[in-house]
C-alpha cells in the first residue's frame, strides 16, 4: 500500500526530483562559496601571518600537491604513506571487528562475559597507547597501522555484535524451515541482516581512523600528512601547513563519500525500506 502511494507521489515528476536534487546541491555549494568568500575578505583585511588568504592557500596547495616541481614527490612521499596506513588500519579493524563480532554475537553468554572487557578497552583513548606501541613496535608503519586498528575496531565490533544479535527471529526460522545449514546461515541471513549496523560502525570508524592517522604521524615518523603538517608548523611555513590541512579535509571527505557510495550499493534495500517506514 505504502509502496503504491510512494510511486504515485513520485509519478508527477522525475524532473521534480532532479530539481530538488539540483537545489540541494546548489544550497551546499553556495555555503562553501560563502565560506571561502568570507575567509578571503576577513584574511585580506586582518592580514595575519597565521591565517593566509584563500588564494595564497590555494596557490600553495596547488604548488605542493598538484603541479609544483615537487608535487609528485610530495604525493608519493607524504600522501601515499598516510593513505596506506589509514586503509591498512581500517581494513585490519574491519576484518577483526566483523569476525570477532560475529563470533561473540552468536552467543548471548559469550557476549555477557566479553562486554565489560570491550567496554573498558574501548574507553582507553588510543593515543594514550602510542608510548606502549612505540616501545613494542618501534616507529615503523606497523605501529601506526596497529594503533589505528586498535582505535577504530570498537565501533565495528560492537555494532556487529549488536547487528548479529538483533537479526529477526523470523528470518532465522524461515531459513531453518527451508533447510539452510548453520554455515550458510551466516552468509545468507545473518550478515545481510546485520549489514546496516556494520556499515554504521564502519562510518564512525572511518572518521576516527583519519584522526588517529594524523596523531600517530605527528608523534614519531619521518613522512606522512601529519608529519608534513607538524614539520611545516615547526619551520614557520604556515602556507605549507595549511596546504596539508586542506588536503586532509579533502581526503576525509573523499573517503567518506566513497564509503557512502559502497554502502548505498550494498544497502540500497535498507535505505528504501527504512525511508518508507
Amino acid at each position, binding site marked *: 500500500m505504502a*509502496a503504491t502511494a510512494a510511486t504515485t507521489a513520485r509519478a508527477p515528476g522525475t524532473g521534480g526530483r532532479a530539481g530538488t536534487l539540483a537545489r540541494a546541491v546548489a544550497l551546499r555549494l553556495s555555503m562553501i562559496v560563502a565560506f571561502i568568500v568570507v575567509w578571503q575578505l576577513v584574511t585580506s583585511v586582518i592580514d595575519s601571518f597565521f591565517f593566509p588568504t584563500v588564494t595564497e592557500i590555494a596557490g600553495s596547495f596547488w604548488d605542493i600537491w598538484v603541479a609544483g616541481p615537487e608535487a609528485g614527490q610530495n604525493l608519493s612521499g607524504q600522501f601515499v604513506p598516510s593513505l596506506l596506513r589509514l586503509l591498512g588500519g581500517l581494513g585490519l579493524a574491519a576484518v577483526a571487528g566483523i569476525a570477532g563480532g560475529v563470533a561473540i554475537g552468536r552467543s548471548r553468554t559469550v557476549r555477557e562475559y566479553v562486554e565489560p572487557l570491550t567496554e573498558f578497552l574501548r574507553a582507553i583513548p588510543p593515543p594514550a597507547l602510542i608510548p606502549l606501541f612505540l616501545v613494542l613496535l618501534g616507529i615503523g608503519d606497523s605501529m601506526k597501522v596497529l594503533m589505528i586498528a586498535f582505535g577504530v575496531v570498537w565501533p565495528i565490533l560492537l555494532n556487529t555484535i549488536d547487528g548479529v544479535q538483533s537479526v529477526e527471529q523470523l*528470518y532465522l526460522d524461515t531459513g531453518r524451515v527451508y533447510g539452510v545449514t548453520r554455515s550458510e546461515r551466516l552468509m545468507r541471513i545473518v550478515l545481510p541482516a546485520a549489514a546496516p549496523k556494520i556499515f554504521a560502525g564502519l562510518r564512525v570508524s572511518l572518521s576516527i581512523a583519519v584522526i588517529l592517522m594524523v596523531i600517530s604521524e605527528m608523534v614519531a615518523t619521518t613522512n606522512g600528512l601529519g608529519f608534513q603538517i607538524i614539520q611545516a608548523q615547526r619551520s614557520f611555513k604556515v602556507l605549507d601547513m595549511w596546504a596539508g590541512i586542506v588536503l586532509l579535509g579533502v581526503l576525509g571527505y573523499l573517503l567518506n563519500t566513497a564509503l557512502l557510495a559502497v554502502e548505498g550499493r550494498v544497502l540500497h534495500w535498507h535505505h528504501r525500506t527504512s525511508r518508507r517506514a
Partner: protein
Amino acid sequence: MTDTLLQVDQLTHTYDPDGANPYTAIADLGFTVDRGQFVALVGPSGCGKSTLLRCLAGLQRPSGGSVSIDGAVVDDVPKQLALVFQDYNRSLFPWLTVHDNVDFPLRHLGLDAGERDQRITRSLEQVGLTAHGTKFPWQLSGGMQQRVAIARALAYEPAILLMDEPFASVDAQTRAELEDLLLDVWRQSRSTVLFVTHDIDESVYLADRILVLSGSPGTVIADLDVPLGRPRDQIETKQQEAFVHLRAEVARLIQHAKTGERDRTNQPAR
C-alpha cells in the same frame, strides 16, 4: 485413495517444564491428514496453534508424542514441508529480489539451474507475479508480498504446506482474493494443506475438514467434514445453508472452548 500423509500422535509440549511457571501449550493432541486434503485448524486465541505448527515444522522439539510424515517420525526440520508465516513482512528477505526470495530454498535441494529456473517461473506464474520477479518485496503491497511467500513455498514443492494465519494481516478484499488464489493453486498442485486461522468463515470456505482446538492446553475437540462442493465461490458458497450451519457450529464449539477455559482459570487453585 485415502492415504495418511501426516500423523500427529499424543503431541504434548510444556514450556519451561522444570521452571517456576511451567506452561503446557498443547496436550495429548492427535489427528491425521490425508494426502491431498485441505485441513483447517481453528481455535480460541492461546490454544497453542503456534506451538503446534512449530512442532510440526521441526522448529520446536515437543516434550511428548510424535509427528510423522509419510510414516517417518520427524525429529529435525522435515524436507517435505514448507511454512507460510503470517508476518510476510519479516519472513521475506528484504535484501533479495522477488525472484531470489523464491529461489532461496531451492539452493538446498541440489537442483540443476534449469530445474530451478523452471520452478521459479512456474510458481511466480501461479501466484500472478511473473512481471514482478526483479522487484524487491518492499516495493510490493502486503497482499503481493504474501503471494511471494506462497510462491516461495510452492517452488519448494512440499508434500505438506503449513500456513500460519497467512491472511490475517491483509485487508478484507485482498484476503478474499488470496483465498481464491490459494484454492486455485491447491487444485493445480494437488498438495496437502494445513491451514491455521482465527477466522471461522475462512476455515469453512477453504477446507475439506476442520479441526477445532480447545483453549489452553490445546487439544482437538472436534473434527468436522465440510460438506461443500468445489469450486467454491466467495458469494455463492457463503450463501449455502451448509455453509451457514457449519460456521455456526464451529463458532459454538469455539465459544464453548473459551468458556470452558474461563471456568477452569476461575478456580482458585489448579
